[in-house]
């Protein structure tokens, strides 16, 4: 992303306005919830909103968050104004989870935003005589697939094609991508700008992407809108695919390059600017357990995807960042679905995530951002149990299965504390069953049972509340 002087000036101006408001006790905090598809962003946001609102009503839903023990006077969602972005409907998601039969939120198809207004009593003795502070927490939900478009902004069509084709030709991707690769490599050096060719290539490439996501559990799949077109659906600017260098100078190659450029421009206006232009805190949700159980390639693919995304974000608090509000001051990595492993394995889960995100973690730390890693379950669906294995009792978790409503004890097996050795992968390919959400009160007034959400919020937002 090249710095744009005009953009820097407008950012600095709005930042100055915000600093003035902060001095007057009205702060704005932008929390970017980052996560690859199916990492649990929507559930995380739903639980976050429900538990904050409940804590604002005096309930002890987030005990580790210091502000909620006495200083948080009220928390409410900001009523809708004249926003063009759809509103994140936390109430509807919660009602669906509490309904009978319960439903987990469907795949997110579009951007949606929500702001939570926290009214806080000030700290210290002088705080008692000054009026309350108001902190607005801006939250955003979006399709996780689109996140993988971020690294594409640093590449032109040729670079992107080369990198993508290289990835496609190796490992478990090669077999499902074979048909597309055969088609792309067969294109002549003077391929005409014929629409049927472009459509055919696009359809084959898209079929591969869908297969890789749904069957192989892979995440590093670009471009994001091929997998999740969003509300505008299919459009001509999507009809491109990575092209081998041999055919790139052809009229078809030029057409595809133009579409690639138009796609990036559109994504910048539609997704990048509203979401990733400015935010102060970031939480990165990773379904480590899912990646671990999907096998070595899926695991490494997740690590690579996270590293590529974080390479495009700006961390730290330099003077320019402070002026434009572009730097991320605190980052929390969260291993989601931590309730799927017994308590004894949760530290290993966090440590495994820490190892998995080693590269982005170091980048953020060197830039001066404060980084933490947590095992988290936004909605706790299991309880502790034990399972016998070859005469020995092993810790496990127990819950109700979503599909048939039967109780099941799940022993998730060994959770390695760091990247597992080659021998470990022999036992991979386990599909974790989906649990039913626990008994919830539909209005969500009591919040939502969770694991570690308060600890995460405390390190991520504690200083600002």
């Amino acid at each position, binding site marked *: 992303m090249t710095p744009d002087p005009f953009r820097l000036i407008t950012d600095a101006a709005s930042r100055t306005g915000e600093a003035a408001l902060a001095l007057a006790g009205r702060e704005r905090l932008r929390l970017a919830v980052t996560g690859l598809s199916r990492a649990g962003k929507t559930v995380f946001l739903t639980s976050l909103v429900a538990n904050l609102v409940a804590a604002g009503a005096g309930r*002890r839903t987030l005990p580790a968050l210091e502000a909620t023990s006495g200083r948080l006077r009220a928390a409410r969602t900001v009523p809708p104004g004249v926003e063009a972005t759809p509103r994140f409907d936390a109430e509807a998601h919660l009602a669906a989870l509490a309904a009978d039969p319960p439903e987990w939120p469907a795949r997110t198809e579009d951007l949606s935003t929500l702001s939570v207004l926290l009214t806080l009593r000030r700290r210290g003795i002088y705080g008692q005589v000054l009026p309350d502070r108001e902190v607005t927490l801006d939250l955003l939900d979006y399709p996780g697939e689109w996140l993988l478009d971020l690294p594409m902004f640093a590449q032109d069509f040729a670079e992107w094609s080369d990198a993508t084709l290289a990835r496609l030709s190796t490992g478990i991707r090669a077999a499902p991508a074979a048909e597309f690769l055969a088609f792309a490599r067969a294109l002549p050096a003077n391929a005409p700008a014929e629409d049927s060719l472009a459509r055919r290539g696009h359809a084959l490439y898209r079929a591969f992407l869908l297969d890789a996501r749904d069957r192989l559990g892979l995440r590093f799949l670009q471009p994001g809108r091929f997998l999740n077109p969003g509300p505008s659906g299919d459009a001509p600017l999507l009809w491109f695919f990575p092209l081998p260098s041999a055919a790139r100078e052809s009229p078809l190659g030029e057409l595809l390059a133009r579409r690639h450029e138009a796609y990036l421009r559109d994504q910048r206006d539609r997704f990048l600017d509203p979401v990733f232009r400015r935010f102060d805190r970031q939480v990165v949700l990773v379904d480590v357990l899912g990646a671990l159980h999907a096998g070595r390639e899926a695991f490494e693919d997740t690590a690579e995807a996270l590293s590529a995304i974080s390479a495009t974000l700006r961390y730290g608090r330099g003077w320019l960042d402070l002026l434009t509000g572009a730097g991320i001051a605190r980052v929390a990595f969260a291993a989601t679905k931590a309730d799927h492993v017994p308590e004894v394995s949760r530290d290993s889960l966090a440590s495994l995530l820490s190892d998995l995100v080693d590269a982005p973690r170091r980048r953020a730390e060197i830039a001066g951002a404060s980084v933490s890693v947590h095992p988290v379950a936004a909605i706790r669906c*299991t*309880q502790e149990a034990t399972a016998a294995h070859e005469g020995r009792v092993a810790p496990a978790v127990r819950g109700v299965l979503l599909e048939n409503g039967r109780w099941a004890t799940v022993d998730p097996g060994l959770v390695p504390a760091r990247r597992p050795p080659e021998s470990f992968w*022999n036992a991979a390919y386990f599909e974790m069953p989906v649990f039913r959400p626990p008994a919830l009160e539909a209005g969500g007034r009591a919040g939502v049972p969770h694991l570690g959400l308060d600890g995460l919020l405390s390190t991520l937002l504690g200083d600002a509340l």
Partner: protein
Amino acid sequence: MRPAMSETAPRPPRVILEEEAGPARLDHGWEGGTEPASIPSAGFSTLSLLAIGLSALILGFAALAAGNYVAEQFARAAWLGWLTLLVALGGFGTIFWAILREFRALLLLREVDAARAAFARGDFTGAKAHVLSWAEPIPLAAPFLPALREAPDLPALRALLESGPLASLDGESRLIGRLAAVQGFAATAISPSPALDALVVGWRGLRLVRQVAALHGMRPGIAATASLLRRAAFDAATVAATEVATDTAVRAIVSNPLVGHVVGEAATGAVAARRLITLARATSSACRILPTN
């Protein structure tokens, strides 16, 4: 083809289905576990018990003595008996009427509490019922009654209350507070001794509490006024806390030697006046059916 699970792996992941059917959902007991901590009420205080016992003795024995006396009078002459009965009934009736009124004022305060609790619980039907029974006797709330009856949900009810009756009541309370402040200030300016100042401001404060309460549809007697004063002092701590800043500022200005030279003894009066305004706000906040935001 996916490779099969290895037999050599230390502990492969497993799902063990349970045979017997359990409850349809897992229950963490979350709702009970996150209840806001509440301090259990210790019941009647020692002073209240003493007062109740003393009143029971005084009133009970007085009633018994009166009964005896009426019976004696009937023995003397029928007309004398009837006259004594009439006097006794009149006297005791007035006393009981006063007690009843006192209890009704206290009950109205409870109504405010119940409505607040219903709002906090999110119980729309309960909140609406309490709000309507609270609003009916208040003249300032009369124009908003139809809208309150038609409120579709809790946020709408809250918004209608805030923008309608509560806004008018808050405004009126402020007006009464300001008037009391002016009167208190004037009284301290002409009073001959500081001791009398305290008496005047204290009396004006009590009257102010009753005036604000009357505005909110209450007719507080001694017990209800005491209860209101206690609530104004404790419940509305935030109002008082924010007022401390203004109070300190007023004190700083009027205690400045130069200003003090000009305004003289009126400085203490200014502080007292400022306190009366605070008291009006605190009382209004204690009588409010929705907590002050």
